């Protein structure tokens, strides 16, 4: 008998979703964390969502995850981004009260039946006959379980850098998890180093707000969770300021003192979220860079300097911060720093997030080379769901690229791997018209219901929404505007549902009206994408056994064979997405797979 059904290592955004997904299915789950005080901590920016990331949060929610509810209960500003750039790429983003978010996360875990929290550091993962069987901790405990979910974030052999200073740490002031990386390497896991960074936090009362532009949020605030109709919380502004020649000069003069440019950091950092020194060096023609000054919470004085992440020495940081309008007298509470950490090659994972090297071990979050709270939570949820599917002896849940951004995220990771911290972008998705944030519940809640992840209340809310959309459509069909039905009229780009001025429609919730409007307006494009998806479905549905013997198939080129063996795709569709695989090799493979099936 094992001590627990499952052990989740790490209490970050991935660990939260993984441990909740397991315990809510009734599995006795132990969450091992270095510090229960840091559960759900937002190590970097104080916001959740954004383009493509907001879609991830809504998908997590539609599958019964927690992130949407947590941010709804802790947000201090909310905006729908890119309203005028097209519906497929709009997404919600909220500023969070970090401390409230983290406290609510901890309280949620503590109050969930079957979920147990234990403070220690895991130094080894145990296995029996190639199957994960538990963990060993720093204080000498051996705890057994039937499944293990690994979510170490930036803590595995983490090291932070501030100029000439460096120290082993996962976050500033919090010790790294030492030893786990080595023991995984000795078991044959492929590891690499990645790097990310965070800007300084400064004291609010030391800032000159008169020198900055104010950035207000939307009113009313929309909810992330499909379980909430609206959010009634205070909305606090952010502030915008800019760097200038002086800032850039200070950075250039001191670039040699950067651990990144000095060669101390070897890990690969994200191109999409460069440090300020990167921006100054790579784009010398830019006269200024935008800086967002964001509150870290309601009660706190700490303000986050979004856009100023850096690993330059503290005296340089102070100097360039003080060269910026609004920040001339800023008092630095926490310095900016870079963190370098071990990640595990995601090519060693199946699309279920189960390791190919150890059965029963699921890996999620930044450990897999991603970045971002939302990407971590999405993987944590899927790892938790698939660990419990395994414990139940049932079929795993693999979302396709046309079903969810979560599907795109995991398919990219396990099929192509990643060389820099992977962040979700709308342009990674082929079918983003289908993957709108407002339709996440319609796409995913039925799947969640089947797996027992969605409660009755969630199912009922979806039914009501579907019913309301049908009603809205029939009202629009029955009304005539300018010689055609309101339904037809709405297809014109310049017409909005509000602009039609139909009184009966005011009875419906705004979010449902928007979903109906977008469905009607983009029906032609949606159909086109759906046809495209249908065309590829056969390939997606053609399964390849994970132990398929590629060497036994004649006619596949040796390069492709090596790639197939490294990735071990679970479908022909996935095999096709491996970069550099030849068309004819796919054809031979599919014939071989089909003929094996027939025996």
């Amino acid at each position, binding site marked *: 008998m094992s001590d627990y059904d499952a052990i989740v290592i790490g209490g970050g955004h991935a660990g939260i979703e993984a441990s909740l997904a397991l315990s809510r299915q009734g599995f006795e789950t132990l969450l091992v964390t270095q510090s229960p005080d840091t559960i759900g901590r937002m190590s970097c920016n104080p916001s959740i969502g954004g383009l493509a990331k907001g879609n991830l949060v809504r998908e997590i929610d539609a599958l019964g995850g927690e992130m949407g509810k947590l941010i709804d209960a802790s947000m201090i500003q909310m905006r729908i981004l890119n309203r005028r750039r097209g519906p497929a790429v709009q997404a919600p983003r909220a500023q969070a009260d970090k401390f409230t978010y983290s406290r609510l996360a901890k309280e949620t875990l503590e109050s969930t039946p079957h979920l147990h929290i234990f403070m220690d550091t895991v130094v080894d993962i145990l296995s029996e006959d190639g199957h994960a069987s538990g963990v060993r901790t720093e204080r000498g405990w051996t705890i057994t379980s039937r499944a293990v979910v690994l979510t170490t974030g930036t803590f595995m052999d983490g090291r932070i850098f501030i100029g000439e200073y460096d120290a082993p740490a996962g976050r500033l002031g919090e010790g790294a998890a030492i030893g786990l990386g080595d023991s995984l390497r000795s078991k044959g896991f492929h590891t690499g180093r990645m790097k990310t960074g965070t800007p300084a936090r400064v004291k609010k009362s030391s800032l000159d707000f008169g020198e900055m532009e104010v*950035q207000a949020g939307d009113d009313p605030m929309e909810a992330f969770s499909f379980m909430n109709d609206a959010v009634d919380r205070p909305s606090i502004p952010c502030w915008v300021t800019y760097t200038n020649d002086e800032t850039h000069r200070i950075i250039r003069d001191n670039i040699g003192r950067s651990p990144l440019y000095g060669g101390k950091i070897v890990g690969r950092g994200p191109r999409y979220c460069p440090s300020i020194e990167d*921006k100054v060096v790579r784009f010398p023609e830019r006269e200024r860079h935008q800086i967002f000054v964001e509150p870290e919470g309601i009660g706190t004085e700490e303000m986050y300097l979004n856009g100023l992440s850096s690993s330059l020495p503290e005296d340089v940081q102070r100097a360039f911060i003080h060269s910026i309008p609004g920040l001339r007298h800023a008092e630095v509470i926490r310095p900016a720093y870079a963190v370098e950490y071990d990640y595990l090659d995601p090519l060693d994972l199946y699309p279920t997030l189960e390791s190919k090297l150890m059965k029963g071990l699921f890996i999620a979050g930044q450990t897999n080379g991603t970045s971002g709270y939302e990407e971590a939570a999405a993987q944590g949820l899927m790892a938790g769901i698939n660990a419990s599917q395994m414990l139940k002896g049932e079929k795993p849940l693999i979302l396709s690229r046309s079903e969810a951004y979560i599907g795109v995220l995991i398919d990219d990771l396990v099929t192509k791997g990643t060389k820099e911290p992977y962040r979700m972008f709308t342009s990674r998705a082929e079918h983003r018209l289908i993957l709108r944030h407002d339709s996440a519940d319609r796409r995913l809640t039925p799947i969640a219901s089947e797996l027992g992840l969605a409660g009755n209340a969630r199912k009922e809310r979806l039914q009501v929404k579907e019913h309301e959309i049908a009603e809205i459509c029939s009202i629009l069909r029955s009304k005539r505007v300018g010689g055609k039905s309101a339904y037809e009229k709405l297809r014109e780009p310049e017409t909005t549902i509000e602009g039609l001025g139909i009184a009966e429609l005011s009875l419906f919730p705004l979010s449902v009206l928007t979903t109906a409007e977008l469905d009607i307006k*983009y029906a032609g494009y949606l159909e086109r994408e759906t046809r495209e998806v249908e065309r590829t479905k056969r390939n997606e549905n053609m399964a390849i056994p994970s132990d398929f013997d590629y060497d036994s198939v004649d006619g596949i080129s040796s390069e492709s064979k090596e790639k197939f063996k490294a990735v071990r795709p679970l479908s022909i569709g996935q095999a096709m997405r491996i*970069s550099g695989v*030849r068309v004819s090799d796919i*054809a031979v493979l599919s*014939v071989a797979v089909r003929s094996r099936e027939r025996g």
Partner: protein
Amino acid sequence: MPHYSVDDPIYALATPFAPSALAVIRGSGDNVIQLFEPLFTGKLGKAPTNTAVHGYICDQDGRKIDEAIVIKYSKGHGYTSEEAFEIMCHGSLPVIRKISIALERQGIREAERGEFTYRAFMHGRMDLTEAEAVEEIVRSKSDSASSDALQRLSGSIKAEADAIRSTLIDILASLEVQLDYGEDEIPEDWVFPEDEVGHIIARLEAIAATYESSRLYSSGASVVLAGKTNAGKSSLYNAILKENRSIVSAHEGTTRDYIETECMIGDIPVRLFDTAGLRDTEESVEKEGIERTRKLMESADLVVYVLDGNESIPPISGDNLIMVRSKRDITGECGDLSFSSVTGEGVEEVLKAISSRLSADDVPTDVPRIDSERQRSCLLEAAAALRDARAAVSSGEDIVAMYIQLALSALSSLTGAVTTDDILDRLFSSFCLGK
């Protein structure tokens, strides 16, 4: 990435692409009959499966291409087990090409090599052994690898296609950056690059038109063999055709009128004319024949003047003329282009000279030329997608992006596929991003 698939409508020529009495073009895939019907005067829709229907094949404008018999197969009956048809038409190269163009325009694409077999197998046609299927695909792989579209592209078209691809990636990256980052981070509005896109559309259509407008490829070139009586024209004609179609005789004046046939010289379909010998004669029938020969020479794309072994200067001149010396076996090699119909020596050189002269004449000044229906339809599809992108500006940037992606994917058979990573790479290298 182009790949084998099942169910989407495809066609392929089942007989060799060469002049012959009969050609068979097969089509297969969902709704392929419905797609084909507008091109055929016969009543195919109502016909039961496995029956032959007579009628005329017409192009999209209703112009008759050829008289044909079409066999209809409902789903589950044909070779692939998909809905299918087989066109039996005349084996004339222009006819085959025109039908191919018409099919492409109906949205039926040219099949990959081995794709029909692949489909038959995937649909569980058990009369086909697995081994055969695999073998055919493997074989098609080695064929298609050597004729890989990317490598086959000649320098000018490759350079132009790459330039268009790169410009489109730039445009798409400048658009995607707006979709990947919020308006607070990228406050500038995106403006549709009217001039660049307009220029690309024009170029795509001009390149596509090189295929359509080229008489060489649409109706073949006309090549006239001329020369004095008994100079060896018919011998050359026969050597070219490698079959005894014309009358070969040692007596002057046997070929009194002209004889015409279709053949391939290099990859160019050619109407080849063997003409009456040029000489002064009083005989009225023969005189008329010679007169016709002169007219034919005036309108020909190329006149191949066959010099008798003893003859030194031809009696005619012109731009569309090449000289060939015959009876090399008797006179020996003499520096000129020469051949012997007895030994076969030099015939190949003559053919090469003909085809290089023909294709040199055909290259339009500054537009690279393409050489297949597939390429042409890809280019036109890309141009259409860009027009759609322009028209969608008021609908939203996500829709515009979708059309530009479509244009890039249409071009992928000429340029190679563009992946989302290509776009992101361009985006990160061109824009300063990230808070």
